[in-house]
């Protein structure tokens, strides 16, 4: 036995170690081949690391694809708002110059018309309606109703143009006037191919070339060109129709009217592309056309179009990204005048968050109070007895969550077992039975029961590692049972309490099923509201915002806990 070399009392050795470390920081230690030792070590460990990575790769990929990516997408929805600016780009652009002082001008209504007709044709207008309805109620119905009538806007002009010259009714007129040379050629070739194929009874599944605008009319008649392209591409996308065979929408005639009214005769006359004569003639005639008041037309469709809220909402949510969902999630709203509180009767989320935190804390506290003595007993019993008891603790884990929750329903309801017993004993009058369920009380009771094992198990595993000699030592030093427990045993069990509390709190703050079943109106959590927005109101943005706030809250609490208790003190066994 030669143990003389290692003496635990030897501090010189540690001091030497420290000196060596200091030296290492100044000049890197080199391996035998002259490379830095660190690099050599990394190289030696690389294979090991790669193997570890390969082992976890399947799970990692699975989690990334099925869990992380959807959650990231979901969280992204909490700020994403592209639907408005994508579906109503012209309107959004035109509203940029709006001073929010009174209704927007005729230009905006025209832009709205072009957007709306296309959106209605593509059946997107109701989605925008629902999106804006989250912010201002009534928007959804305005959009839905107007979707049917918006096609008629500009009809008066269409009639007048056609009356002037029936050529305006002819799709070919429009195609030659606005289509680019390349497109016209491609289109002609395609038609020829299609005809040939049809006559030969062959399958022809090449789609028609996508409509492209000519350059000159784009400068000369910007709105018309834009509206016509929108028309041509939309009918191709939605119905596979060709602009060569379809009369344009009324909105195109509106655009043409507006273009011709704006442009002076000389500019039109200077144009020498196809359809010049038609244009010159129309330009000469438009001054005599009967003008239509767009605002009045919209007012006829729905009064909402000539009131302020719709335009304010449009304006506020025209950005592709919005804080609107987050604001709504904390009972605020975005108005043209900035961020304001929601009307008092619509404030629910702050209350719900408070309630969720309060109830989670209550549940956590109850779990500590109920779980600590059990865990203490478990850790001090003989192996056999404690195993039996542990099975009883774990029994709830093996029972369906739904069954357990339903059992509480049976027990706690007004005609339930507990009320029956209380009435039978005479503590409670038969006509005045206690409301024990479908309120906060019921949720706290049921959730405490369900989450109790999550408190007991970490407590138990920590307590088991506390040797009984500590308490014995304390007693031998003169401490009473209580002092020995409180001063010596309890401080050492704190890591278990910490672990249990974190577990129970985080689990309960996001709990859904039990509050849904037994929470009633006053005992529901924020998670129930999230579920409502996901599956019923379909306001996923708000659901995502609420979820993000919940996530941030949990992370913040975790951080605070780490600062106060220290996450290293958490032991799960």
């Amino acid at each position, binding site marked *: 036995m030669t143990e003389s070399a290692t003496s*635990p*009392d030897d501090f010189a050795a540690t001091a030497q170690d420290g000196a060596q470390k200091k030296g290492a920081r100044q000049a890197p230690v080199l391996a035998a081949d002259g490379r830095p030792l660190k690099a050599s070590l990394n190289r030696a460990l690389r294979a090991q690391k790669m193997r570890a990575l390969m082992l976890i790769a399947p799970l990692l990929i699975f989690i990334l694809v099925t869990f992380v990516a959807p959650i990231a997408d979901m969280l992204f929805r909490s700020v994403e708002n592209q639907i408005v600016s994508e579906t109503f780009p012209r309107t959004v652009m035109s509203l940029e110059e709006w001073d929010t002082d009174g209704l927007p001008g005729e230009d905006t209504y025209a832009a709205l018309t072009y957007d709306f007709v296309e959106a209605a044709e593509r059946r997107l207008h109701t989605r925008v309606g629902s999106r804006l309805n989250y912010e201002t109620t009534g928007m959804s119905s305005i959009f839905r109703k107007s979707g049917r009538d918006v096609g008629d806007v500009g009809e008066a002009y269409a009639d007048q143009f056609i009356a002037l010259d029936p050529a305006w009714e002819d799709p070919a007129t429009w195609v030659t006037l606005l289509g680019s040379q390349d497109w016209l050629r491609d289109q002609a070739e395609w038609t020829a191919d299609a005809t040939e194929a049809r006559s030969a009874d062959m399958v022809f599944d090449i789609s028609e070339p996508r409509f492209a605008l000519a350059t000159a009319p784009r400068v000369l008649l910007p709105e018309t060109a834009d509206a016509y392209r929108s028309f041509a591409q939309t009918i191709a996308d939605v119905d596979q129709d060709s602009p060569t065979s379809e009369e344009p929408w009324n909105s195109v005639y509106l655009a043409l009217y507006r273009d011709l009214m704006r442009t002076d005769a000389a500019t039109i006359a200077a144009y020498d592309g196809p359809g010049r004569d038609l244009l010159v003639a129309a330009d000469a005639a438009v001054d005599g056309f009967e003008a239509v008041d767009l605002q009045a037309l919209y007012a006829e469709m729905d009064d909402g179009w000539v009131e302020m809220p719709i335009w304010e909402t449009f304006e506020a949510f025209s950005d592709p990204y919005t804080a609107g969902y987050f604001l709504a999630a904390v009972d605020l709203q975005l108005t043209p005048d900035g961020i304001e509180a929601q009307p008092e009767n619509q404030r629910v989320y702050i209350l719900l968050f408070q309630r969720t935190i309060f109830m989670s804390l209550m549940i956590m506290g109850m779990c500590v109070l109920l779980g600590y003595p059990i865990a203490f007993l478990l850790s001090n019993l003989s192996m056999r007895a404690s195993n039996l008891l542990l099975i009883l603790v774990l029994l709830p884990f093996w029972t369906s969550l739904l069954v357990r929750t339903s059992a509480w329903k049976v027990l706690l309801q007004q005609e339930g077992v507990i009320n029956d017993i209380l009435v039978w004993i005479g503590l409670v009058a038969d006509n005045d039975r206690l409301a024990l369920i479908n309120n906060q009380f019921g949720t706290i009771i049921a959730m405490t029961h369900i989450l109790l094992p999550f408190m007991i198990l970490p407590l138990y595993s920590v307590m088991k590692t506390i040797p009984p*000699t500590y308490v014995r030592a*304390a*007693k*031998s*030093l003169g401490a*009473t049972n209580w002092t020995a427990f409180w*001063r010596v045993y309890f401080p*050492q069990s704190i890591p278990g309490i910490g672990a249990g509390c974190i577990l129970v709190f985080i689990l309960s703050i996001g709990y859904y099923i039990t509050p849904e079943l037994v929470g009633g109106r006053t005992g529901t959590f924020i998670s129930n509201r999230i579920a409502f927005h996901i599956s019923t109101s379909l306001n996923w943005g708000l659901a995502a915002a609420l979820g993000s706030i919940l996530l941030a809250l949990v992370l913040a609490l975790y951080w605070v806990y780490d600062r106060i208790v220290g996450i290293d003190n958490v032991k799960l066994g």
Partner: protein
Amino acid sequence: MTSDNSAAFVAFDRVQKSYDGETLVVKDLNLSIPKGEFLTMLGPSGSGKTTCLMMLAGFETATHGEITLGGKPINNIPPHKRGIGMVFQNYALFPHMTVAENLAFPLEVRKIGKSDREAKVMRALDMVQMGAFGGRRPAQLSGGQQQRIALARALVFEPELVLMDEPLGALDKQLRETLQFEITNLAHQLGITTVYVTHDQTEALTMSDRVAVFDDGRIQQLAPPDELYERPQNSFVAQFIGENNTLMGTVSAMRGDTAEVRLDSGEMIETVPVNVSNVGDRTLVSIRPERVEYNAERLSSDAHTLNAEVLEFIYMGDIYRTRLRVAGREDFIIKTRNAPDQRRLAPGEKIKIGWRPQDCRALDA
């Protein structure tokens, strides 16, 4: 082993202990410890020594019998009121308190004022040469340092009785030896009564005033170390304490204070009868390896000699250890001091060995 309870500071009187109601772990224990004595309970694991200690400390209750401390029965006094200092094998220093807080704990629960407390803690720390470590946590200390602190904590409230439950069991050999010395010194300096439990016989021999050898729930022998070693009362003690050569035989004649034993291999030897009394008794003859002599010049004239053959010679530095074949046994060991004039034996060598008759004890078989 009868005890005079009036002079005893600690006394066990016919104490029995059973855990399961079927077997006795401690059988009829009678023991009295005078004030200031350093008594060691030595025995193999399961011999009941720790149970005795725990009964004294109050963590176990005696099934039968009475334990008195300073003349007062303490059977019904809870541990925290007994005022007994205790040192545990795993130190049992409270990990969430600093060293100073650990030491202040027994003073705090005794409601001793802060300044007084600090002075006492400082004194106790200095006593174990750990004055500079008051602010550390136990986990920052080495095993030896922790044990010093545990010792200081057990002594800081000035108990009259200190119990130590294998306190040095987890330390390495060198440190153990240093601390053995320190503990005995401290105990004698402070004049406290100490009951020390160990299964290490060297520790028991070097530290104690008296050693109680436990086996099978009974004290097999209670004696000062030298007596225990040189005059074991029975074969268990002889074999448990120190190295021991044994030869089986039968008593062939009793002659006053000597007994003639015929070994199973036929040789006749003279022995001191310890617990054999009749001719014809089977006996286990015990001889300590260092009392066996093979150098003819050193053998006293009246010494018995036996033939032996060297089987193995081991050089151990300070001593030579030689295994011999003697009287049909191949595990006969002799130890000789590494002196300049000492001859080294070679395997295969035929020698004669002998010893003084008083070193050879005939014990129960």
